[in-house]
């Protein structure tokens, strides 16, 4: 599989044709997409036009961007001007945004070629893509197994070679968990590093866009392109994008890596075994492993499943059939609202809207939402204490390797537990990434997760690069 950086440099210096690169990827899509279903929409025609434009620019001696000719897939919850953006929901089916998300504008400016919109759990709510209204995505390593979620389509697209890279969104682990399950690199940056403008909101205080790539260098390159302050997003951090590629060869000698001794139970032994190997590798490379405690981590899952649904209940209220998306006509206004939302939303989305509405209701706010916010402060305090003695923390990304379709669909709580190691990062607003580190049960990929404090991306990428060298 061609790396993003190889394509970009080859296309940039004229030794590689962007059109040829796109054709290779479209050919792989033709060959396997019908079984994988990574995409809601493949924009082949536009991709060919865009690639030809890049080639013409190179030929004309124009300066091309850092992602010249790189085929990239976008999770279908990022707005693309004039191109259907559905969130894998019937309620938005057919909706074409009149504007591009900031990340899309940045990708285009850097010369990337967008090949399509990838499948996801409806409105990014889920951990397997089984909640997509348009059918699940299959794990390219074993099509009887889920790719993880919610950004399962984006993870599978990279794992299957449909795109050199993709973007996903991560609210509680939706980039890192599918990255782990599909054996690719997935990064959730510090909250505010990548603009959310044009990302269809699930839980605004937790959502963050990040890259999927086949290696750490590609991830660093892509993240450098999409990050940076955006005046259209008030929560965007007002400082320039971090320099990440420059630190990849720095190694980890002298770094202190945290091992969480009070990690929640439920992690499969094969995954824990890979985690121990990762600690060994880092120790061998000169890092010190330090035991730390995160006492509040056991409350994070519960807090998350109050905060995220609460925000979602508000964010998804706009899908009322009045201005855009699908409408089911009815006798009066309230019946129209109810019929539209009944028909337009899937079961999991409705469950979370109900949960969130309840958590914010008069008389329940303090006991549920208010208490969840306290947990959020507690886990941030725990992390702050831990980061006094360590530079990064290493945990499993997912408690298990990719599971089989249908194995958790009847039990929402079992599905929610998929995110037990990824959620604390979102609550704290910190960066974290999943790096492939060998295989576990059923020869399926295992990822380890590198966590860092706010704007600690450089330390995080140093450790990730070291793990990649050791794997």
């Amino acid at each position, binding site marked *: 599989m061609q790396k993003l950086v190889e394509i970009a440099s080859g296309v940039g210096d004229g030794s590689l044709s962007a059109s040829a690169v796109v054709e290779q990827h479209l050919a792989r899509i033709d060959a396997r997409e019908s079984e994988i279903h990574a995409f809601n929409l493949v924009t082949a025609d536009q991709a060919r036009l865009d690639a030809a434009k890049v080639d013409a620019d190179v030929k004309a001696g124009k300066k091309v961007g850092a992602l010249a000719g790189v085929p990239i897939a976008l999770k279908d919850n990022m707005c693309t001007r004039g191109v259907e953006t559905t969130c894998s929901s019937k309620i938005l089916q057919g909706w074409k945004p009149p504007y591009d998300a900031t990340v899309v504008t940045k990708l285009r400016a850097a010369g990337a070629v967008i090949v399509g919109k990838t499948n996801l759990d409806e409105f990014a709510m889920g951990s397997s893509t089984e909640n997509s209204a348009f059918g699940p995505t299959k794990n390219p390593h074993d099509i009887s197994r889920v790719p993880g979620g919610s950004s399962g389509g984006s993870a599978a697209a990279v794992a299957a070679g449909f795109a050199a890279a993709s973007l996903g969104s991560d609210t509680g682990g939706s980039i890192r968990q599918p990255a782990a399950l599909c054996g690719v690199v997935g990064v959730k940056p510090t909250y505010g590093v990548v603009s959310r403008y044009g990302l269809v909101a699930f839980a605004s205080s937790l959502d963050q866009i990040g890259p999927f790539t086949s290696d750490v260098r590609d991830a660093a390159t892509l993240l450098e392109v999409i990050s940076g302050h955006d005046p259209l997003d008030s929560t965007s951090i007002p400082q320039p994008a971090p320099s990440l590629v420059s630190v990849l060869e720095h190694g980890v000698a002298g770094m202190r890596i945290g091992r969480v001794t009070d990690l929640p139970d439920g992690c499969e032994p094969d995954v824990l075994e890979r985690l121990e190997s990762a600690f060994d590798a880092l120790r061998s490379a000169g890092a010190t492993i330090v035991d730390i405690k995160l006492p509040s981590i056991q409350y994070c899952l519960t807090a998350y499943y109050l905060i995220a649904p609460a925000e979602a209940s508000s964010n998804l209220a706009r899908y009322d059939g*009045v201005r855009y998306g699908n409408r089911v006509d009815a006798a009066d206004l309230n019946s129209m609202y109810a019929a539209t939302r009944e028909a337009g939303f899937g079961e999991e989305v409705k469950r979370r809207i109900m949960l969130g509405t309840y958590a914010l209701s008069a008389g329940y706010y303090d006991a549920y939402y208010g208490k969840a916010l306290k947990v959020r402060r507690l886990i941030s305090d725990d992390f702050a204490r831990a980061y006094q003695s360590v530079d990064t923390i290493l945990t499993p990304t997912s408690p298990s390797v990719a599971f089989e379709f249908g194995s958790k669909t009847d039990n929402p709580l079992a599905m929610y537990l998929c995110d037990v190691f990824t959620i604390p990062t979102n609550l704290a607003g910190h960066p974290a990434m999943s790096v492939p580190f060998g295989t576990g049960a059923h020869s399926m990929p295992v990822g380890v997760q590198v966590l860092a404090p706010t704007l600690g991306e450089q330390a995080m990428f140093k450790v990730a690069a070291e793990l990649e060298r050791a794997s």
Partner: protein
Amino acid sequence: MSDVAALPNGWQLIVGLEVHVELATKTKMFSASANRFGDEPNTNIDPVTLGLPGALPVLNQHAIELAMRIGLALNCKVQPCTFHRKNYFYPDLPKAYQITQYDNPLNVDGHLMLPGEVRIGIERAHLEEDTGKSTHFGGSSGRIHGSDYSLIDFNRAGVPLVEIVSRPDIRTSEQARQYVAELRSILLAVGASDAKMEEGSMRCDVNVSVHKPGTPFGTRCEIKNVNSIRSVGRAIDYESRRQVDLIESGGTIRQETRHWDDSTGRTETLRTKEDADDYRYFLEPDLVPLIPDPEWIEAVRAALPVLPAARRLALAELCGVDKDGESALVVVERGQDDYVGAVISAGGDPRRSIIYVQQAFAEQGATPKVPAKDLAALTILERDSKVTSTQAKTLLTDLIEAGGGDVVAMVAKRGFETLDTNAVEAMVDAAIAAEPGAWQKYCNGEDKALGALVGAVMKSSKGKADGKVITALLQSKKNS
């Protein structure tokens, strides 16, 4: 002024007002869409205004500054604050939530003074965004229920608003009217809003309750759709009487929102407390806390203009009129107080200067075309009885039409030189001779007969004689 008697049987009216004003910004509260009234529907829109998926709000700095001006003019404390989401479904609310301020508003704890040193507390003045405007067609009520279809104009959606919430310190409908009028002139003075109630850029919700002094406040009803200062008074008078009548006939007041119907002069139930939405307020995660720099606050405070109350006081002292009277009120509201000052500085008669401007300069704006010295000259001519008050009015019209000029020349042109008293006396004698019947009646105490005599003199003088002089002459002849 109040056209309704005080409440009967010792009932006391308690009123608090919530006033929404649209801020005079170029763009909307959270996006670059134009904030402009009267444009073609749905032309001032963008992804943020329409609440499209993925769109995010960005605070308009000018809106914050105008809101701070309002707060500072109302003697509020300006403080670090946050934004919340108020969630409810309605077709003209694009995101299905309104971004507003909840437990941490920008401005708190202020007050506003009414005539007679009545102090009305201001609880808060917070920032929020306006909704779109729905128009319902078909049906009889003009409301969504029962209508055939509705159209929505999103030009108004996202327009910056400040909601000014008074404490329940208002005790009469007259005070409520004064409060709204005073608030309006403050808003105009600080340039925060055009405050046009007829265009909806200033809107009042009125909270009304009644109680007997010494007992807790009664249950309040909130009245909506009160769209003029006059309606504020009428709605309060109607609603307070309704509440008293209901209580005295054994009923109880339900906490509810009521709709004021200006044509019937009544309020009707819009929704009861039980039907009220649970707004599920929570901190708006798409915005960060707003922490105005203390230096910024002080700069805004320093740049505030002199407020209407202080200007009325200064003007009233200068002109020798009542500071709470109509002339000071009107002239300051039009911003013509500096002009009146200039007329007086140019030697004008103080009282006449303010009255002339009040009565004849409604269309002139803050900087009338008539040079101050010309108006000053006219007031002196009248003061010195060189022209009659009727003639002065005509000359004033001439002066305004010509945009100023030599008043003495205008007097000559109109032939307004007043007749000397001897000439008038001769005409009075002639009138007595010509109207002996009227003269006899007048001498017998029938004052009505005076008109015929004065009229006769006016006629023979071709209007140049001063009516006051004629009357004085007749009076002295009767008494002699």
